[in-house]
């Protein structure tokens, strides 16, 4: 039974610099990198390549020592130019100088009827050997899934509601058949259902209409309606002992391409957005791309922050940094490294606040787009305000109490208050609106790590 969920709580932060729906041309980046830090939960990785090795797209670069089945493949073909290690020789990043023409490692191809007759084991085997496995994120804990588990359900959020997010219907157009193939593969993996969660007030794509044997759920409301964690909470909440898997449409398409074409295809269309981009648009590249060529001559100032991902959950990278594995966008916003005279009390219509105590009349212009910088606008303080975080977290969870349980190392409290259901991204808006300027997403991850290791 499909479900329709209407969410009232949440917040759409409207920012200047939405990407225009066109694919802009830029020289393809020379180097690509896969960083171990992008894979949360990956603690002990072992490199399979050395500097100077020649790899193809799909060649495993390193694996997870905790679970040797999980391999992390190269997005492009070329030469391994750097194996960067940190303290105690911990693997940090593998950099590849890409070929002009990408060569692919060959994997078996399957027709639709062959997929139909494949066993669960052989599907799992194909997914792990090729490396597309790392698209599977497991809940609870929001880490790369363990192929030895059997998930209760599989969830796919087919839209991104975060600020300046790329339009999925644009970046995935023309990939419908792969998406359908991917969905057929996923059906093999769970005794439960494959849930495809779509935006309620958007036109549904032909891929959604053609999909069979899955459950399509509609979600209405502001961000974080597109977060898969919120969707799971409203469809089939996670309890202690449950495991569900989640994927992005990109992952589903990648799986589809693996089965239909027999290759690990890491090509993707990414959005370059944000107030500091001269002409925000979309670019065709591959996972782990160096952003230097993409942003070249397209940035307004020099005091800017490059973010891999969106402004709520993304990560600051250098001007010649690399796109995160799970990211579909690069955001460029002004750096906020200035001190402002009486900035805490002077009214300023350019500033944006969820709280009426700052932007008392902002409700008069609900569609105004803002230029936000990275200034914290204050200092860290203990939790004082109550009731605000609940307004942006559409879950039956008491956010402040959960955070306090984490701070107090109260394992039972965390469990009872819903730590299994949350991931950092679900608390991103809480972090944004927090008057006390706490790093709430980091706290949530700390809590998840604690409960995972207990």
């Amino acid at each position, binding site marked *: 039974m499909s479900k329709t969920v209407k969410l009232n709580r949440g917040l759409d932060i409207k920012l200047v610099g939405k990407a225009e729906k066109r694919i802009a041309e830029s020289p393809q980046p020379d180097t690509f990198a896969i960083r171990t830090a992008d894979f949360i939960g990956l603690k002990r990785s072992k490199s399979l390549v050395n500097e100077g090795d020649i790899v193809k797209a799909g060649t495993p670069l390193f694996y997870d020592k905790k679970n040797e089945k999980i391999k992390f493949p190269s997005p492009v073909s070329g030469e391994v130019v750097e194996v960067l290690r940190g303290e105690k020789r911990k693997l940090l990043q593998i950099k590849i100088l890409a070929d002009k023409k990408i060569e692919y490692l060959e994997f078996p191809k399957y027709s639709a009827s062959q997929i139909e007759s494949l066993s669960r084991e052989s599907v799992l085997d194909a997914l792990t050997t090729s490396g597309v496995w790392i698209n599977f994120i497991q809940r609870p804990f929001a880490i790369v899934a363990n192929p030895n588990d059997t998930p209760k359900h599989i969830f796919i959020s087919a839209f991104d509601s975060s600020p300046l997010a790329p339009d999925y219907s644009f970046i995935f157009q023309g990939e419908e058949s792969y998406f359908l193939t991917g969905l057929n593969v996923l059906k093999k993996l769970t005794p439960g259902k494959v849930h495809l969660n779509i935006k309620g007030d958007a036109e549904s794509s032909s891929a959604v209409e053609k999909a069979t044997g899955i459950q399509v759920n509609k979600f209405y409301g502001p961000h974080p309606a597109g977060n898969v964690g919120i969707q799971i909470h409203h469809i089939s909440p996670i*309890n202690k*002992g449950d495991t569900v898997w989640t994927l992005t449409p990109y992952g589903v398409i990648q799986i589809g391409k693996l089965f239909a074409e027999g290759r690990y295809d890491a090509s993707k269309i990414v959005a370059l957005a944000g107030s500091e981009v001269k002409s925000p648009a979309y670019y065709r590249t591959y996972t782990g791309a160096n952003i230097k060529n993409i942003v070249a001559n397209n940035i307004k100032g020099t005091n800017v922050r490059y973010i891999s991902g969106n402004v709520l959950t993304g990560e600051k990278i250098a001007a010649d940094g690399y796109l995160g594995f799970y990211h579909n966008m690069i955001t460029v916003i002004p750096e906020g490294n*200035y001190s402002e005279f009486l900035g805490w009390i002077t009214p300023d219509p350019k500033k*944006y606040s969820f*709280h009426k*105590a700052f932007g008392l009349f902002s409700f008069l212009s609900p569609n105004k787009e803002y230029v936000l910088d990275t*200034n914290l606008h204050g200092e860290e303080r203990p939790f004082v305000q109550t009731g605000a975080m609940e307004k942006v977290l559409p879950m039956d969870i008491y956010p402040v109490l959960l955070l306090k349980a984490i701070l107090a190392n109260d394992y039972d409290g965390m469990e009872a208050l819903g730590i299994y259901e949350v991931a950092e991204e679900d608390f991103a808006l809480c972090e944004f609106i*927090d*008057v006390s300027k706490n790093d709430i997403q*980091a706290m949530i991850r700390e809590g998840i790590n604690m409960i995972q290791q207990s």
Partner: protein
Amino acid sequence: MKALRNLLDKQKPLFAEGGKYGKFHYLFEAAETFMFVPAHTAPAKGVQVRDAIDLKRYMMTVVIAILPTLFFGMWNVGHQHYLATGEQADFLTKFLLGAKLTLPIVIVAYTAGGIVEVIFAIMRKHAINEGFLVTGILIPLIMPVTIPLWQVALATVFAVLLAKEVFGGTGMNVLNVAMTARAFLYFAYPTEISGNIWTYLPEGSKTVDGYSGATALSILNEASAAAVDAQSGALKALEASWYPDLFSFKSMFLGTIPGCIGETSTLMCLIGAAILIATGVGNWKIIFSVFAGAWVMGLLLNVLASSGIGNAFMGVPAHYHLVMGGLAFGAVYMATDPVSASQTETGKWFYGALIGIFTVLIRVFNPAYPEGIMLAVLLMNVFAPLIDFFVVDANKKRRLKRATV
């Protein structure tokens, strides 16, 4: 502003760790961040942009919402003085007299509390917290204008120390700090904070015939002790005051009555409430439920009184309870304290309603304490975690019910 910024930057190394005045780092930082929002930027991972509000702004909004009661209170201090002496005075004269008497109390409260804050910040090596911006103005407003300044200082130090700092500072306290200050004086120096001490009458000043400094609540208390007729006796005692219409419903609503500096005017409290609710700083559920709780309890007592049971105070119309004493002030500024109040939205209904109910119960049935809101707020501060416990427990049970392991 650049000159000021440069000056601060020049002095900064002196106050840094290991600097000449390294010990006073947090004092310097407090002054610096008060003038300039620091250049701190969002960390590399996590939310890269942040809401424009901070705790300073949040607390300052409360201070702004308190100002109507402060200004009205200043005028009323003068007004009550000239009423008692029978002299004529214009608006400005009354206001200036009130300001002259009130400001020292405000300054003493801020200074005494501020010193404690600074000492703890230096000792604990944490930034000076904005919470005191609010406490420092609330304490003077719940004091009679005749209070000796040393008592204000002592009460403030006691409250900040024992109601806040021992728990870890702003955000960690269990009790409302300002209410604790008043409770301290109430029990330690009762003569200066109860009885006929509400009007400023310097030594040697003459009062009009029949003058009495009693408040509405103490008149009603005496009336009920004197076993006046439960139906209407208490109200008659209130109406028969030394000045015509002194304790009429209208006067009590407007606040032209004797009482603590800031808490006599229900109207000003409602203006403050409007500011708090419009800015989203004060919780409307708590404010509404305190009033509702008190009114319903008042009605209930009226019904009992009409059947001839109980004391005279019970017969006072329920809506009188909302304008007498400090109920409105307590409901708007004390009960809504986000730290000591109930943390859950459902809990806030119960928390507020119980404050209202207990206020009326204490007023009517406790002959020792004519004012109930102070004790009711402190009592419910202690019980707020218990209310939250039940609300959160229901949430936990829901989650546990679905679990399979």
